């Protein structure tokens, strides 16, 4: 589902974010990407979303070589990816409802379906009572959960999250990881960038470790407990 072939990303002659990175994430996998700050995690995620292009090498997501992708195809490709940004990227002038509903407008869902979908997504992150709040009225943790709800609202093929638990307490962290796990069970491939070692170890998932732009370690997943089933936001699918 996500394939990196000898990917190097250089910003200038003195700054190389990724150096000859090769890895493969198959469909339905749940992978953690870890490493210290500045290891290249965010750059790698930006390459997946084609926010930037690699200097060398190829990135293939869902069978599509991103280097060869036309600009006009980009929006439709991005709709297949649910991205949780480190800085949330919520639209401040929009309410929580509008922030999520906007995605559904982009996807062309009729307005009558928005309320149900948005409510379901917010319920999954336990913020259904914040429907009419503005992002700046919410705490960092709440904003992060809204960003997660937005990323998951259209059941994307791939979920990519950049430090999605960075602002959350341990209980909420478990809750959020569980939401990602449920999305994974529903078929989404999940890649989470985090430097929370404890979270990674508890999960027993596959881990890719980056250090100064190079993959220094890859650990396979350990056997998991029995998966939970059922629709993610109570909306079927």
């Amino acid at each position: 589902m996500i394939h990196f072939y000898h990917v190097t990303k250089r910003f200038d002659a003195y700054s190389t974010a990724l150096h000859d990175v090769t890895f493969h994430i198959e469909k339905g996998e749940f992978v953690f990407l870890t490493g210290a700050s500045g290891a290249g995690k965010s750059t790698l995620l930006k390459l997946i979303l084609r926010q930037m292009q690699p200097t060398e090498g190829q990135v293939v997501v869902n069978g599509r070589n991103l280097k060869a992708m036309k600009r006009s195809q980009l929006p439709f490709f991005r709709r297949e990816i649910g991205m949780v940004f480190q800085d949330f990227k919520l639209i401040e002038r929009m309410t929580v409802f509008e922030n999520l509903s906007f995605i559904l407008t982009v996807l062309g869902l009729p307005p009558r379906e928005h309320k149900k979908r948005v409510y379901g997504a917010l319920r999954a992150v336990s913020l259904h009572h914040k429907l009419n709040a503005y992002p700046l009225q919410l705490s960092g943790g709440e904003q992060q959960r809204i960003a997660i709800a937005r990323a998951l609202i259209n059941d994307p093929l791939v979920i990519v999250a950049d430090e999605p638990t960075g602002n959350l307490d341990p209980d909420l962290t478990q809750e959020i990881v569980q939401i990602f796990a449920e999305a994974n069970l529903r078929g989404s491939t999940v890649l989470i960038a985090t430097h929370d070692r404890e979270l990674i170890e508890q999960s027993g998932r596959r881990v890719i470790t980056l250090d100064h732009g190079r993959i220094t370690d890859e650990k396979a997943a350990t056997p998991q407990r029995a998966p939970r089933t059922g629709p993610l936001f109570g909306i079927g699918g």
Partner: protein
Amino acid sequence: MPLRDDTLPKNTISYFFREAMRRMWVSKRTTFVAVAMIAIALLIVGSFLLVAENLGRAVARAEGKSRVDIYLNVDATPSQIAAIDAWLAAHRDFAGRRFVSKEAALARFRQSFTNLSEIVGQLGENPFPASFECEVAPALAQTPAFAGQAAELRGLDGIEQVQFDWEWIEKLKKLINLVNLAGLVAGGLLAVAAAFTIANVIRLTMMLYREEIDIMRLVGATERMIRGPFIIEGILQGLIGAVVAIAILFAAFLAGRHFLAPRDSLLWGFLFNTFLPWQKLLALLAGGMLAGYLGSWLSVRESGEEKA
């Protein structure tokens, strides 16, 4: 799943309008400037069109009944006048004649140009000549035979000048064309300026929403979806500008007809006879919308995701 689907979502158009109106409301001052620029440009075009329209109608009315004015010498003797009258009576084309004495000409002038009548009074003597006015069939008036008769008429004693009104009709037609052209050139230039103003307003708005636009791109909004509200914003600004221009023009027209036309009936009566027909009003509205569209298009075509 195909990666290309150019059809817009069903609720997109209403989203465009909602967003465009919201953004206009948020940026009221800059929107006002853009609307004012469009309104001024179209007001100028509309004024020229209105003048041309009324002159055009006057010409159309005049063309229906052509007239020959035969001005006599100031010192024409009664016998000369009688001879001229006899000549006119003998020629069928000029037979529908009417004699206008010096006194009648002065009275007519005083009636038509009330504010100039005092000046005429100060001259001491009546400067207007007596004349014959002949109604001539428009089709006949431009035949060679008629021209020969007119040349003969000019040779009669006691005649100062023979004037055909289709000559001034032709001049008036040229003037109308000139007015139309001047209006289009002046209005066109101003419309271009207005389009650039709108372009800058939209550019400012896009800068204001830069972060939001980036987010929209990242979550999969197409460029059409992102740019749509800005295009609609430009078109709405143009439309509102055009409506404002038409409203001001109509108010000015009504005021002119109420206050000016009754006082100097000839000149103002011509100019405030009729308002613009609906086709020209539609053209003004379309012109405003087009200027708005071009302005916003100029701005949004420059925007796009930066390559990293």
